[in-house]
């Protein structure tokens, strides 16, 4: 668990664009042996949700939001040695943002959570065209596919992606999640067979352990 005053310091440094302090807070937590998932959920995710909220309420500009995201993306590199060094079971997951979707931090966290739980988590990136995704699935033959959606208006692109994946890979487990589902849409994706909505990184971990 990360102390609230440390989180507040991290958030204010993030909003001020002070990458150095954010790096040093993250490094200290890693050195103290704080679990990676705590750093992800209680620091990175919590701070970025707050940044998103501030942007939605027009209290910070889009450039500050981009800067904060860029800083957090850079911080991921600090935890990678711990994530990728874990023992692997041979199971694979491919994680992608759907077409038109430019937000990628959430998807990347999902791929990393798979890694932490002994899976190979391949993150494809933002705005991945459908055919590229199908090609990659065919190449990697994953046990699960994760699709992340941040903007509700891209729901159609997400369901198109699910449909085309389902047509080509009928048995592939698909999990979906992301900030877009705060505004609804769970019932839309749940209609597809083999598609599970995941509401948080903690419930993702529970799902992974069941597989």
């Amino acid at each position: 668990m990360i102390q609230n005053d440390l989180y507040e310091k991290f958030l204010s440094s993030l909003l001020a664009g002070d990458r150095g302090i954010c790096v040093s807070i993250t490094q200290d937590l890693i050195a103290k042996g704080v679990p990676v998932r705590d750093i992800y959920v209680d620091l990175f995710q919590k701070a970025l949700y707050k940044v998103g909220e501030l942007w939605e309420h027009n209290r910070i500009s889009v450039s500050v939001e981009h800067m904060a995201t860029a800083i957090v993306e850079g911080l991921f590199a600090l935890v990678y040695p711990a994530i990728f060094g874990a023992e692997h079971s041979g199971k694979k997951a491919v994680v992608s943002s759907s077409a038109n979707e430019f937000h990628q931090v959430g998807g990347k966290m999902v791929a990393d959570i798979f890694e932490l739980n002994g899976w190979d988590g391949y993150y494809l990136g933002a705005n991945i065209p459908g055919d590229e995704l199908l090609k990659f699935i065919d190449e990697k033959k994953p046990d699960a596919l994760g699709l992340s959606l941040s903007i509700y208006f891209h729901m159609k692109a997400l369901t198109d992606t699910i449909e085309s994946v389902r047509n080509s890979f009928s048995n592939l487990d698909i999990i979906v999640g992301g900030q877009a589902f705060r505004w609804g849409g769970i019932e839309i994706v749940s209609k597809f067979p083999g598609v599970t909505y995941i509401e948080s990184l903690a419930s993702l971990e529970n799902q992974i352990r069941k597989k």
Partner: protein
Amino acid sequence: MEHFSQYLNSYVMKKASFILILMDSEGIILDANEFANSITGRALKGERFKNVLIDFPDTFKLEDYLHDEGKGFLLNIDTGGLPETYYFQFKTDGDKVIVIGEQDRMEIADLRKNMMNLNHELGNLSRELQKKNAELNKLNILKNRFLGMAAHDLRSPLAIIETYSDFLIDELPQGIEEEHKEFLDIIKTTSSFMRGLIENLLDVSMIEAGKLELDLVDSDSSQLIEKNVHLNRTIAKRKNIDITFSSAESIPRVSLDENKILQVMNNLISNAVKFSPSDTTVSVTVTADSENLTVSVADEGPGVPEAEREKMFSPFGRTSVRSTGGEKCTGLGLSIVRNIINAHGGEINITDGESKGSVFTFNIPFES
């Protein structure tokens, strides 16, 4: 005009991040703010305004632009590098014209989006790289484990082959055919080489697995090396090569792993002998200053081309130089040597000999 120039050079305008230019009705620039001078890379005063721009119509008529006063025009600035698009507005001030140029907002938004995408891309590549790196590390550990197991299991049977072929050579019955004697020699030489190769592979796998541990003792290093030189003389004599030893008078006792340093000396001296022609000398020298023990092994062989020297210290990093008596090399010896020296906190390098050949010099630091 004077008033406007003062305004242009005021603190606020110096800090401004937009273009502010004053020109006459002919389009000659009378003054420009620091930002305008800075992005074009020159003092604009006295220049024609149209020369500041790219793709500006030759038939420039200021009145065309003044006609729509208050309305903006997207024009490209000549920055000396990539052109930048600015949103220009023209305002009249008596017979003068004030030009205000702000960076195109759409372009800024595009730039920001591109920067964000590049940052995403960089983050993804960094993740991919670190994932690949972790996978390679795991494969390397597996490789070392496999190498260690295979080498260990091969060493014992090879040692038996080598020992029994030795017995057979020592106790050859009278009248044995010369050809059969040669077969035995080949078995002995080849098994001996293979045992050496396997021992080197074991060393390399230990080193790569980070298991190179030193058993440090307070050692009379000069005496240790002299004894080793003496043992190597027997092998060198087969090629009629002499090994000389010289040592400075007072070499301090140094903390080192004696077996590992003997391994280093065996490698360096046997290499020197391998690559030296007959009737030459290999010189081993030991010196010391207040901080370092320095040992050098010099030969009179063909030398090593400078471009190939670094490669020699990598595993299997063979060079174009060939041994003079057909001796085989595993290509691992110098890599092991460097790792042992580095583990002692020292370094090894190779230089040209005074007249010919190569000199391998290593140092081992110590505290006085």
